[in-house]
Every structure is written in C-alpha cells, then in structure tokens.
C-alpha cells in the first residue's frame, strides 16, 4: 500500500512538472488532469474513498471541462510560454525552489508514523454527520458561493 501511495505521489509530481514545461495549454491541461487523478488515487489509498470520488467528479471532471472550454475560447498562442518578467529568469526560478525548501524543512520529515494510515468506515460517516449537522451553515455558504460563481459566467448581454 505504501509503495502504491509513494508511486501515486511521485506520478502526481511528475505530471505537475510536465504541465509546467508544456508548450501548449492543452498539454498543460492534460498533464493537470493526470495530477488530479493521481491525487484522487492518493485519497483512495488512505481510505478516504468519498474524497477520491468527489476529486474525480469535481476536479478531473467539471473543472477540467471548464479549463478546456477556456482554452478553446481563446486563440492558441504557442510561441510564448514564459512570462516577460522584469526580473532575471534564474531569480524567478529561485523563488519556487525556496518555497519548496521552506515547506520541506517545515514539515517533520519522517515524523510520527511510518505506516500508511487508513480511514475507518466510520470516519466518512462522521464527516457526513458533521457536514449536515453542525457544519450545515458552512455547507450552505459554499453552496451559495458555487451558485454565485455559476452566475458569473452568464454574459452581460444574455
């Protein structure tokens, strides 16, 4: 299990890196889909099946569709991939590296448990209980947010 977990994590990172250096937006989008699916797999591997399904549904499904539509509605521009920054490019590359270094050092690497945790069946039930019980207001708020967001795509002249 742990090997599978590590494999999926590694693949997700590889896909992300590939997305970064793709020349075309389509390529990036496809690589992103790979990342999203690998993340879903990570969720399933720790026993959070529900989260995995939702990840596939919402991200790998709905959001990807949105991205593809956004790319489609603009003319392709393959010549230019990187931004015309005012700063030298190596300096700009250093910042993500610094972020990685900072995050990596902040986490307790090789921390508490070596084994991969597994969510019990009750955990997702309790989550549901939370969402529809005490956290109902938050769920309602997010639902409202999604509704308003969907209104945003309505064209002004429609």
């Amino acid at each position, binding site marked *: 299990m742990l090997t599978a977990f590590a494999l999926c994590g590694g693949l997700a990172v590889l896909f992300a890196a590939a997305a970064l250096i793709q020349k075309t937006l389509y390529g990036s989008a496809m690589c992103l889909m790979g990342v999203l699916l690998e993340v879903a797999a990570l969720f399933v591997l720790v026993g959070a099946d529900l989260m995995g399904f939702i990840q596939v549904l919402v991200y790998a499904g709905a959001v990807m569709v949105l991205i593809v539509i956004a790319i489609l509605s603009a003319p392709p521009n393959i010549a230019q991939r990187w*931004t*015309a*920054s*005012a*700063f030298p490019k190596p300096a*700009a590359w250093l*910042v993500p590296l*610094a*972020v990685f270094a*900072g995050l990596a*050092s*902040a986490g307790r690497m090789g921390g508490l448990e070596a084994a991969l945790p597994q969510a019990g069946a009750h955990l997702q039930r309790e989550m549901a209980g939370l969402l529809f019980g005490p956290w109902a207001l938050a769920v309602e708020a997010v639902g409202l947010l999604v509704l308003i967001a969907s209104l945003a795509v309505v064209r002004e002249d429609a």
Partner: protein
Amino acid sequence: MSPLPAAALVLLAAPLAALAFGFFVTHRVRPRTTHLPILASCAAVAAASLALLGGALGGASWSGRLFTWISAAGVQVHFGLLLDPLSVSVLSMVAVVGFLIHIYAVGYMRHDAAFSRFFLYFHLFFFAMVGLLTSDNYLQLYLFWEGVGLASFLLIGFWQHKPTARAAAWKAFLTNRVGDVGFLLAILLLFRWTGTVAFADLFSNPSLLSSQKAFIVGFLLFWGACAKSAQFPLYVWLPDAMEGPTPVSALMHAATMVTAGVFLLARSYPLLERAPGLLPFIALVGAFTAVWGAVGAFFRKDIKRILAYSTVSHLGLMTLGRGGGGVFPAVFHLIVHGFFKAALFLCAGNVIHGLHDSLGGAPTATVDDAGGLRASMPMTFAAFTLGAVSLAGVPPFGGFWSKEFVLAGAFGTPALAALGLLTALGSSLYIGRMLFLTFLGRRSWQKGHAAHAHEAPPVMWVPVLLLSLGGALAGFLAAPLARLLGVEPHHASHTVTALSIASMAAGFGLAWAAADLAPGGEPAWRSRHPALLEAVESDFGWQPFCDRAAGAVAGAARFLGDIVEGSIWDPGTEDAAAAFPALSEVLGRRARGILNDYALLMTAGAAGLAILVSLCF
C-alpha cells in the same frame, strides 16, 4: 577670625549700588554726571579699606559667608568674604590708587562723548578687582577674575572705531581665557581631590593634597596667573592693551588687572609651597619675563608701550619675588609698583593730553613726538621723575626697597641673581631713556607745529603727584606690611645692595649715552642694527608666532565650518535623502505591471518572512 564688619560689606555694596544707579539713572538722565556716584563709591571703598587696614594692623582679620552659590552633591561653594592681612593690604593699595585714577579720569575723559559709559566700565573693572581681592574661595575668585577680564575687554576696546583697539580687546580676552582654562581646571581638580575650594579649608589642612597633586594644581594656577599677570608665554596681550584710554592702562597696569595674577599666587602660596620644584620654576619664569620685558621696553618708542613692557618686566620681578622669597617681597613690590606705575602711566596720559593738538588727536605718542617737556609741564615732569627714580630703584625711593627684598630672595640661585641684576640695570636703562627723551632734550614737537604743549589741569596732575609721592615714600610701608603679613623680612646683604645700586647707576649711565637728545634724530646705534630692532619689535618672533597660532585655529575653524560642513555633512545628508527618490526611480522602471512579477515579489517576501520567523524561534 571675626565676623564681617559693616565696612566689609561696603566694599561690595558701594560699587554695586553706584553701578546700578549710574546705569539706570544718570546714564539715561544726565550722562555727564555719571562719575559722581562712582567717585562716591570709590571714596567709600577707599575709606572702608583703610579702616579695615587699621583694624588689620591691630591684629584683626575677618571672614564671613554671605550665601550659598552652588550646591550640587560634592560641589558646595559659598559666597563669602575673606579679609585677612594679605587681602586687606593689597586692597588698600588698589582702593587708594584706583580712587586717584578715577579722579584723574574725570579730567582725562571730560571731552569724550562716551564719558558716562566709560565710567561705568571703569568702575566695573574696579569692582571686579575689589571682589577678587576679598573672595574667600577659588571659584568666587574665578568669578571676579573673569569679571576683570570682561571689563578689560570693554575698556581696551573702548574706542570701538579703531580696528587696533578692537583687535587688542579681543586678544586680551582670548589670551586671558587661555590662562583661565588652567585656572578653572585647577579649581575643578581641587574639588576632586579635596572636596573644597575655600581658602580657609585648603590652607588650614596641609595634608589635603599630596605634593604631586599640589604641583599639578599649583602649575595650573600659575598658568592662569601667567595670562592675567602677563608672564612669559602669555604676556602677549599686555603691550597691545594700551589701545584703551590712558586711565585704563594706568588702572590695568597698576591696580586692577595684572596684579590679580600676582595676588592669586600670593594667595595660593601655602599650596605652592607644598609642590616640590614649583617655586623655583615660577621664579625662573618670572626672572626671564623680567629681562624679556626690560629688553622690550628699552627699544620701544611709543611711550605707553614702553611703560607696558616695563610692567611686564616688573610683574616678572614680582613673580621672581614670589618664587624666591615668599609672599612678602612680591606683595610689597606689587604695592609699590601700583603707586609708581599708576603715576607713570598718568604722566604719559598728561603728555598725550598736553600734546593733543600737535599730535592731531592721536591717542598715543612716541618719545620722538615729545621732548623737552620739563618746562611746559612742570608738575607732570616732577611726578614722572619721582615715579621713574622709584621704578629704577634709586635709594631711598620706594622701588629701591622692594627691589632689595626681591633680589635678596633671588640671591640664593646664581642664575636668578644674574637675571635680577640684569632687570635692575634694564629698569633704569629704559626708564632713564624715556625720561631723558621725553622731558629733557629739545622740543621736537614745536617744529612745524603751531600748537604748544601745555600742562594738564589740576584734576589731572594732583592725583598724579600724589601717586608718585606714594611710590616714592612707599619704602616706609615695608615694616608695617611685614608685620601685617607676619613675616620677618629677609634683608638684603650689603653685597646685594651694592650690586643693585651699581647696576641701577650703570643703567642710567647707559641710558644717557644711548638716548640721543638731538630732536627727531635716530641715534646712530639704532640705525646701524635694523635687524635687531625688527627682532625686538616682534618680541623675537614670539608675537608673530602667537598670531600664527591663532590664525591656525581660525583656519581650522574655517576648514570645519565651511568646507567640512558645506561639502561633507550637508551633501552627505542631503544626498542620502535624495538617494531614496533615485532608488524609487530605479525600482519603478522595473515595475511594468506584469502580474507574475507582483506574485513573485509577494511570494519572495512571504517566504523571506517565513524563513526569518523560523530562524528567530
């Protein structure tokens, strides 16, 4: 010590009251009468001091505290009066001589537009000196010491329109400040080492200061006295100081200013005594100054300048007396010198006054301008002759006796003795030359001038005659003064007397030979040695050196004030401020409005902050 009598308070109260009344009332309402309250105050001070002198001769001395001046932790200074034999004896001379000079000044300054202002300054001078003499601690003495300096500044520069007077006034004050720094440091060191500056505490307990500390303090005090009393390195201001009106010179040279330093040394004698090697050093400086002044006086032509250098010389003698023979010779010579020097200066004033028309109103005269005045100015001539023989030390006049005591003290050391005899010779030499050229000889002033020399009015010659008589008869004061100071005067041996009389006589002889009485003509020896004359004129380079030193400080000031301030500090701060707009210009060119750049800066900033925080905790 008895409590202060009323007369003691008069010493300070009368001049203060006179000054206030003169400044606020007569100076505004009737400026021509300002001298009246001031003369009254002088008379009161003279009477009070003579009364005190009488008491002191009866064995009394007084001291008292008036109020607390400064009180801060370890520094406790009280304002008080100390009237012991030393201060009373000098005070009496100062009061009497000062009073007579005040009277003389009424006549001398009668026609000056600033008559009233002159008297206020003049009396301030007098007041400061009286305060100085009666102080009971060093800090209070320092207050009046500086007051004397201030008054001398005002009076030397009294004729403000003259650039030389302004420069001389400044030079006097500045040189005195150079000395005062030493005095002030001595006072502060006394506080540090003994916790007190009161004379009574300091001198009653000899163990307060170790001999090494006494040397440091004594040396600094002597440095202060060097400036006020015109001793060698710091005498430079005194010859210039005759830029003021003549009564000022008389007061300054005889009574008020230059005697202050000698008085300070006399006052500090118990302290100086404790310092090993200091008294011989002082004596040596004094002897050197005495000869130095005598040489300067001999070559000068300006009559006031001759007298000024003669004062330098005699102050050197007093210092020599202090260093060699204790308090008595110095104080005695100080008193005698006060009388005859005042007389001589006032005579010079009479000469200038008398030649006023032929000089075209110049404030001073040279020996060449005068000549043959004995007939037209008989009273002045008489007074001058009395003063001159007294100065030269012709027996039995006053100067003879005081010089005997000084030389007697000095004869222990051959070098001092030689210098002392040389001074004795020099004194008669320069004063004889001046006497011969001014009053004997031919009347050079009549040639080409329509005007005539005339005798001064009685208000001007009576005080002069009295002063010169005082100087001549001052020999009688020796015994009472010695009794007053409680010392057994160390009489000179016959050898010393003979030697000093011989050198005096030789001096007069040389003077007669050196003074070419032909009118207006330069004696042949003068014209043969122009380099020598030039060297003497510049005091063998010492005056120009002092001027250059002052110029160097002024140059440094200009360097700092103009160049460093103007081209380092100002641009430094202003350009530093201007760097910020320049920096924003540079950075602004980078900001081209690209989203990624802002994201970059934001992320970099957040990451940097996170790293900083993680490092701190």
